[in-house]
């Protein structure tokens, strides 16, 4: 019994390793997916945001996921005729995708904000900006996290 059990375990482990080697990257990405896509869809009303105009500033490597500085800036004249109204930030590998939503107005002068966020693991941070004319722009950045920031 014991030997069979061990052999099964060994086989399972071997299969798992091969699987992980073959599909490591893709399966990890699949596992990392939370409701980020749905949250973005809800925010844009189903529209696909255009890449560009949004600048997302985060470190390449975050040693401590408990506090990661993040700056979001959107190119816009910020006049009553043309301005950014909202910027949604999501993280696709956190237990919950939502990070923050900034609300701007022409009185903001510049569509730029900085805060410190938590990242549980290495993942993509995605910012989607909504313009007053109903268009959407986006940017994303992969952040490598050494120590996760969501506690046990």
């Amino acid at each position, binding site marked *: 019994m014991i030997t069979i059990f061990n052999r099964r375990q060994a086989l399972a482990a071997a299969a798992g390793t091969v699987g992980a080697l073959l599909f490591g990257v893709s399966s990890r990405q699949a596992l990392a997916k939370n409701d980020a896509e749905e949250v973005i869809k809800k925010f844009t009303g189903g529209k696909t945001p255009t890449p560009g105009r949004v600048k997302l500033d985060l470190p390449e490597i975050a040693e401590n996921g*408990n*506090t*990661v500085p993040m*700056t979001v800036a959107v190119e816009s004249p*910020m006049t009553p005729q043309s301005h950014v109204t909202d910027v949604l930030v999501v*993280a696709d590998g*956190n*237990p*919950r995708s*939502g*990070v*923050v*939503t*900034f*609300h*701007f*107005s*022409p*009185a*903001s*002068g*510049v569509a*730029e*904000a*900085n*805060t*410190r*966020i*938590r*990242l549980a693991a290495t993942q993509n941070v995605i910012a989607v900006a909504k313009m007053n004319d109903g268009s959407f722009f986006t940017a994303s950045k992969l952040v490598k996290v050494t120590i996760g*920031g*969501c*506690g*046990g």
Partner: protein
Amino acid sequence: MSVKPRIKLDKKEAKKGDIVEVKALVSHVMESGQRKDSAGNTIPRKILNRFICTVNGKEVFSADFEPAIAANPYIQFKFRAEESGPVVLTWIDDDGSRIVGQETIKVT
């Protein structure tokens, strides 16, 4: 709970149309609701979920915070100086309590 936020404006006096930068830091645990205590019970969520800045009573910037905002939340943003008046920063807790801080901007 008397938490005093730390607020800094990059200038106290500005010309009309100038961009003023605001930096603010407030003490708060921002308990995510994901953590467990030593007995394995989930620690209930308790965060500041909303931040609003008004200048002379007009909202210039606001934000909705999720549990992914780090403890002792820091926020930095800008506004266009239009008229002199109080710059009021308000954070709203999950329990409904508010943390309020104030500075003054003089527009010439």
